[in-house]
């Protein structure tokens, strides 16, 4: 039904060549609640670590290393190992996203 409304909008817009800016207002009203849900999750999940959390992170990494040395990590189940592998992959991919930002393009260096 939403598609039909946008189709109607588009068809009306075709006949009016001057009022092109009106198309954005309906897009804004459509995306505002979605933006709200995005912010609702991003405020908790995507926020950078506060200065208090960085020592915790270092302690956590030391914990992992200790577990690796003691052999405790060999006891993880396949399910847990798979889940941890997925999380590690996602964390590593942020490096490539940063690289894309740094080089100013998605594919290749624009030299």
């Amino acid at each position: 039904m939403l598609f039909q409304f946008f189709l109607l909008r588009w068809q009306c817009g075709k006949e009016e060549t001057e009022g092109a800016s009106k198309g954005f207002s309906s897009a804004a009203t459509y995306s505002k609640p979605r933006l709200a849900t995005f912010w609702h999750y991003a405020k908790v999940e995507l926020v950078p670590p506060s200065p208090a959390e960085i020592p915790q992170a270092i302690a956590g990494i030391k914990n992992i290393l200790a577990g690796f040395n003691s052999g405790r990590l060999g006891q993880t189940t396949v399910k847990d190992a798979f889940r941890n592998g997925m999380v590690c992959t996602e964390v590593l991919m942020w490096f490539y996203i940063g690289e894309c930002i740094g080089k100013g393009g998605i594919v290749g260096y624009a030299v």
Partner: protein
Amino acid sequence: MFLHEMYETSLLSLALIKTKKRTDLFRIIDLICYQHSTLACALPQFYNSNMVPPVVVSPVIKTARWSFLLIGIFYGKQRYDYLKPRAEEERRVEEAEKKIREEQEKIAKALVEASEDTILK
């Protein structure tokens, strides 16, 4: 309840199409979009608990993500600055070589044309 309002506004929009009042029609469509978007998102979904509460991410993962992001930005910038002068140099060298090559080709072609024995010139 929402469906009834949408039905009303859609009837109104159809009536407005006939009268060809464009600005009113745009306003009605904005209203429909807003109604549908509030239907689809925002509070009712949270009350019906279809959306999960946000996950509290562990500090290890948070620092790892952001540090990789920053390292990646830094690396991308460094690599770009390293590659840019080299690419320009290579382009310059390529231009010069291409010019020399074209000169030689022109000379070779002129020689070939001069030495062929045809009367069809």
